């Protein structure tokens, strides 16, 4: 457990130190939202109606671009061998790294969401449901992202491939995430069934992806 915490802490430290890696994701997230707004036009009604889907989409895209960092850097500089050898279950190491990715990359996006919601004219009562849906749903992104990063481990410039691999797997998270945000904004109790389904999707990710990620790391470092 101590060892996993050490891996988690190191990854978070590195994400914030390496040329503002995590902050770049926030900038990308904000720019995507701005591009959406510019493309849709300044009509406040249309923008505020699309705010939740836009924010979920932009967060997903920002996450996808950062997935390759989860394992690639450790693979290239040889640290991954040390992590494999350290004796911890490799699937738990994968889980620690996915958690570090969530904290260093997706949590800042969620924290930036209120500001961007303001730009899009998100109604006041819609903030909490949107952010809650992101907190519950985006861990699934990090988990499947870690898996895709492991699958593409031996490849350089893999982010396009990683996007193609993860996008179909992440459709349920996006569907349930936006639905939960909308249901919450409508005032449905507990944000309707969508929030439970979203939580189930994250739980499914926790159960399935670490073992698959570990196997992919093994095969790619073989």
């Amino acid at each position, binding site marked *: 457990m*101590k*060892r996993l*915490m*050490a*891996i988690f802490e*190191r990854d978070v*430290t*590195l994400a914030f*130190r*390496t040329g503002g890696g995590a902050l770049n994701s926030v900038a990308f997230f904000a720019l995507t939202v701005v591009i959406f707004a510019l493309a849709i036009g300044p009509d406040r009604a249309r923008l505020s109606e699309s705010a939740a889907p836009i924010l979920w989409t932009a967060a997903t895209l920002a996450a996808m671009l950062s997935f390759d960092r989860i394992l690639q850097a450790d693979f*290239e*500089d*040889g*640290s991954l*061998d*040390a*992590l*494999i*050898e*350290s*004796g*911890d279950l490799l699937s738990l190491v994968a889980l620690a790294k996915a958690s570090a990715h969530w904290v260093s990359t997706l949590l800042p996006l969620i924290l930036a969401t209120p500001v961007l919601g303001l730009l899009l004219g998100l109604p006041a009562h819609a903030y909490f449901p949107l952010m809650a849906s992101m907190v519950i749903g985006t861990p699934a992104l990090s988990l499947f992202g870690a898996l895709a990063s492991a699958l593409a481990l031996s490849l350089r410039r893999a982010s396009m491939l990683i996007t193609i691999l993860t996008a179909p797997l992440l459709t349920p998270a996006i569907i349930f995430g936006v639905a939960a945000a909308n249901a919450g904004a409508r005032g449905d109790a507990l944000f309707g069934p969508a929030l439970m389904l979203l939580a189930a999707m994250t739980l499914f990710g926790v159960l399935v992806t670490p073992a698959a990620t570990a196997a992919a790391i093994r095969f790619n*470092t*073989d």
Partner: protein
Amino acid sequence: MDERPADAGRLIAARDIAAQRGGRLVLSGVTLAIGPGDLFILRGPNGAGKTTLLRTLAGLSQRAAGALKRSDNASVFLGHADGVKAALTARESLSFWRMIYSAPPAIIERAISRLNIFPFLDQRGASLSAGQRRRLALCRIVISRRPVWLLDEPTSGMDAVSIRAVVDLIAEHCRDDGAAVVATHEPLDFGPGRTIMLDEAA
């Protein structure tokens, strides 16, 4: 006939192993037993499979055939890459390794003095020279406290003084009932020790 477990007391025992790289069989029929005190210099031309053999002994690569027995946490592997993060200081790297190998704090002091890390202890990996990074990478091997050191070109990029320190460190580790397999192209003098020649079968 002789079913007596000759591998008893061995840390790593490989029998008749074969290994692939990139879908091609690079090694075959390698039998090697590593016990306390053993020191092997691994030599062979480029592409003979030195790295592959080390990774296979380390359990990092799957063998294509043969049997491999390893006692728990038998070995630690240092590859061509140093595993040193550009954004972490030497001190941070050391304490991270101490955590993942669950080693006592005193081991860091020993590693720092043996590999002369002190001059750049608070510099980030990005500002270290190749030889300094290599020395730092070797600290991980010391910190791991694993008995068998599997080292791939451990002295690459180092000056003569550092090379001497590394050779002494490895020889001392083996005298203290450790073991090492060192792949190198350099004429390192470890004193006693055996040589594994890897080459195409004639």
